[in-house]
């Protein structure tokens, strides 16, 4: 069957700026209630981290989400990944969704590499039989070799990153949401990530990823979504989108 893999309409996320600050402790809140007279900052100030974002993504498509820091890219991904609920709008995702907002989520320093494969694999949504079936490939891909049974706290940061990425690279799902993963690691690591994204798309998977790396966007995506101050300012062909991003960033 074909049809949109992701259909987002009117997605928005509203944050109360002061609420985040003032609700840290109950006593501060009580203090504010007890204190007579005008309250210094008044009502909470609200901030739309994301406002009225709509788009459709077909199966097998790779969409690049670009924008300056604070433009709402991560908020969009967090909403699509169900980590946080939207304030307005809705999105439908059809297919098994894998979200990689970082590599190595949940890695525990005291556990060995092999144990962390099991832990991280389960966290990012792999079934136990999938993890078992791919364990040898993951270890091979990571290149940590005989250190696989050593606690990862003794790993170099490069080894840690390679193992974490190796697990993520073996996650198979129909829709992948990938945030800024390309920004970490060395050139070889970034190249691996790009090839992985291409392979997923060629296999009929849908990928939505955020990046500041325009050469990666150009190579991997046919279409881009440009965000600025939480709003979608452009959605379409990647060449024009990149030009729009450069204009905003410049």
């Amino acid at each position, binding site marked *: *069957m074909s049809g949109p893999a992701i259909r987002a309409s009117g997605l928005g996320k509203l*944050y109360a700026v002061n609420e*985040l600050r003032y*609700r*840290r*402790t*109950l*006593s501060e809140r009580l203090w504010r209630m007890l204190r007579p007279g005008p309250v210094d900052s008044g009502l909470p100030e609200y901030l739309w981290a994301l406002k009225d974002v709509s788009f459709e993504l077909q199966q097998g498509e790779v969409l690049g989400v670009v924008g300056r820091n604070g433009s709402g890219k991560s908020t969009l991904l*967090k*909403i*699509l*990944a*169900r*980590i*946080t*609920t*939207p*304030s*307005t*709008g*809705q*999105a*439908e*995702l*059809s*297919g*098994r*969704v894998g*979200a990689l*907002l*970082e590599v190595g*989520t*949940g890695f*525990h320093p*005291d*556990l060995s590499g092999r*144990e962390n494969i*099991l*832990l991280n694999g*389960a*966290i*990012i949504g792999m*079934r*136990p039989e999938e993890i078992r079936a791919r364990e040898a490939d993951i270890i091979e891909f990571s290149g940590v070799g005989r250190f696989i049974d050593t606690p990862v706290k003794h790993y170099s940061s490069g080894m840690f990153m390679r193992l974490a990425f190796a697990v993520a690279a073996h996650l198979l799902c*129909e829709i992948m949401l990938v945030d800024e993963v390309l920004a970490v690691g060395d050139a070889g690591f970034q190249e691996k990530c790009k090839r992985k994204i291409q392979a997923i798309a060629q296999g009929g998977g849908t990928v939505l990823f955020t990046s500041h790396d325009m050469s990666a966007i150009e190579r991997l995506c046919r279409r881009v979504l440009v965000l600025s101050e939480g709003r979608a300012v452009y959605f379409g062909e990647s060449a024009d989108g990149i030009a729009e991003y450069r204009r905003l960033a410049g």
Partner: protein
Amino acid sequence: MSGFVVRPSSEHALIDLAELARFRHLFAVLVWRTLKVRYQQTVIGVGWVVLQPLLLTFVFTVIFGLLIHMPTDGGRPYPVFVLSGLLVWQFVAQSFQQATSSVVGNAHLVTKIYFPRILLLLAAIAASFFDLLCTLALMIVFMLWYGVAPTAGVLAFVPAMLLAAVTVLGMALWLGALYVPYRDVGHLLPFLTQIWMFVSPVFYPLGLLPPKYELLYALNPIVVAVQASRWAFAGGEPPGSGMVAISSAVAIVLLLSGLWFFRRHEGRFADLV
């Protein structure tokens, strides 16, 4: 082919059992991680699970048994008496503190990946059941040593622990959700646990209280859970049916209201934690 819709919420049910079933593998891995990490890099490892109640039993026996001459149910030896209480209490204290702290303690997961957040609480409670089983083995050793026979109350032990677990889950759903925006809960938690122990008949017998206050006392379901353990392993009287009814009602209200409160707020945990 699976999929889902995200929307501003929140007309969802109190609990989505089908979804929890889909996440059972993650639940199992979280329990395994908790146990594995807890005893990693310790010299005696799992030995701590038995050593903790053993040391506590020793301390309580010296203070309350030898110095204060605390009466016990049916005049049973104080070590057997107090361990049958600690059996339940250690489970309650540990699972309550860990389940309540579990959302804040796993902020790195909550902000990066989706799963039903209640899974963290359930995993914390399940991991405490492992410790309970070890303490139960110690209980059996004590009973053999002091020649105390179990009673028909052993049949009530499993339902009693279920009552305790439901109570803990209800409390942890409320406090765990409040902990996310209000770190005050972290400071409150040790006091609350300590007070909870004093209002449960852990180191003193239920009979120490004037009987007219029994039903009031049963507002704390752990009272009934501890008494059921006493009945099973240390020759105590079974808890009265009025007490059981009140405790069960309190536990169910705590659980349902806790589920409601937690579900109402879990969508924003990632924003506030």
